[in-house]
């Protein structure tokens, strides 16, 4: 079980060797918060399969987004990407891995956890941030903030939950899940011509040794035309490095701040959410794009999120009155 409290990451401390961390799928986590009326930077629980069971000790409003682990509330299936009103004493669990790699649980008002260096994200190595700097364990009790909404009034008698009718269309973000756009990195030109071709023509498979730090890829051995060692430099979420054995690794949310392997490319930010939902043995097909397109796609994704946020706020405001 690897369920941790995360937010959008801890920025500003790279130069101290403290990486940003944060959620793997920034899109799903932001939507989860919006659906329950939170700021997008509120803490959520990032859940990996097999996920924990959660007992709600108060009435509240929740949402689950991202990977589909067959979420059940009191043994009845509830949909993803919807706000759901939950009655006190209901139990949420995730019995089956349907699709995706991690899902996000947000509660209205947000979880009461302490910030470390301005972020709720759990930094496992430092043992700080999130829930006591560690992953969640059986028996943990996490409180969430009180609400102005009278949730009991939204529940029909005898019903343990109520799915609110509005839903998010996530089509644009997760469309063509295996097609991952990248821009060329500083050492792209050091790849041999045939390796450059392999990079864009071949499929790469995600290796089982893939986690929040990085995705190791399996494919044909790629070669550089020169073999000078590089001095370490800064790296980021999405950096594609070439390991000495000719295989690739894509750095993910918990990556180290610096690295010395050749940087073949960078996955564009708008495609990190769908990459974060791929699993070991899934395929990746890289497509090279330019920085302008990368920016346009990210701005379009943000535009969608902005529209969604306005719609959610409006609907939730109506519930308060």
């Amino acid at each position, binding site marked *: 079980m690897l369920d941790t409290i995360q937010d959008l990451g801890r920025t500003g401390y790279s130069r101290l060797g403290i990486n940003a961390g944060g959620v793997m799928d920034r899109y799903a986590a932001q939507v989860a918060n919006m659906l329950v009326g939170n700021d997008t930077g509120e803490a959520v629980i990032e859940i990996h399969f097999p996920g924990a069971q959660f007992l709600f000790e108060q009435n509240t409003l929740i949402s689950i987004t991202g990977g589909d682990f067959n979420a059940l509330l009191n043994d009845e299936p509830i949909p993803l990407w919807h706000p759901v009103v939950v009655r006190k004493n209901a139990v949420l669990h995730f019995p089956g891995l349907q699709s995706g790699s991690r899902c996000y649980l947000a509660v209205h008002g947000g979880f009461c956890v302490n910030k470390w260096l301005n972020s709720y994200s759990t930094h496992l190595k*430092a043992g700080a941030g999130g829930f006591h700097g560690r992953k969640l364990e059986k028996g943990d009790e996490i409180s969430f903030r009180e609400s102005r909404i009278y949730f009991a009034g939204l529940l029909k008698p005898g019903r343990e939950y109520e799915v609110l009718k509005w839903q998010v269309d996530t089509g644009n973000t997760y469309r063509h899940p295996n097609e991952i756009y990248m821009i060329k990195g500083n050492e792209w030109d050091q790849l041999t011509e045939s390796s450059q071709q392999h990079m864009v023509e071949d499929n790469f498979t995600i290796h089982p040794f893939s986690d929040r730090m990085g995705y190791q890829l399996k494919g044909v051995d790629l070669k550089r035309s020169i073999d000078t060692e590089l001095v*370490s430099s800064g790296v980021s979420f999405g950096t594609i490095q070439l390991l000495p054995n000719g295989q690739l690794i894509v750095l993910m949310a918990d990556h180290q701040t610096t690295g010395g392997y050749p940087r073949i490319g960078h996955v564009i930010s708008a495609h990190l959410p769908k990459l974060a939902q791929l699993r070991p043995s899934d395929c990746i097909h890289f497509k090279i794009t330019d920085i302008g397109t990368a920016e346009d796609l990210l701005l379009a994704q943000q535009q969608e999120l902005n529209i969604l946020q306005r719609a959610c706020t409006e609907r939730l405001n109506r519930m308060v009155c």
Partner: protein
Amino acid sequence: MGNQISEGLNQKALAMQQWLLAHPFEGLKDCLVAYSSLTVLYNPVIIKKHYQPANTVYAWVADRLQQAFDNASQVKTEIRDVIRIPVCYEEPFAPDLAELARQRHLTREEVIHLHTAPVYNVYMIGFLPGFSYLGEVNAKIAAPRKEHPVPVQAGSVGIAGSQTGIYPLNSPGGWQIVGRTPLRLFEPFVPEPVKLETGDKVQFYAITKNEFMEYDQRL
């Protein structure tokens, strides 16, 4: 700025970072100096909204970095005091020291002397919170990394190539461990969690095992 370990390039990158932090722009998320580079992380959405660059956000940031580059020479680099760090080079804190000495036909004392003689530059912090990359060690004790990482205790002082460094946390690691400092170089819950920063000057001095133990208890 180049693929080499050079104090000049490192200083230039630091000066650029200093200028950027003194003249930050909306959407600047983070920056970090490594051996011969400055990495800048930014949020394109915020920059787009705030400055509405005609071209790409990337071009806008590149322009800003050019400004930092041009103005870096005017950044006053402070002369920093040498930070002296106690290291116990005795067993069990120095598991790889004997083998290194044997390979180089040096005595234990000679290795310790070579390691403690120079004032090192902190070229960068990376890998783990507060892990400092110091350089450069005397060529006589420069040593390759281990092929496979082994568990390393917090405070351990290692050598990898011409670099030396201190593990701030328990971690798997591949550096040749020649000693251990009782100092805590990373403490998450104090106002300044990381003790060394890029650009600091560091010199090690040898302490005995007894001094290490006393030091440890005082902390």
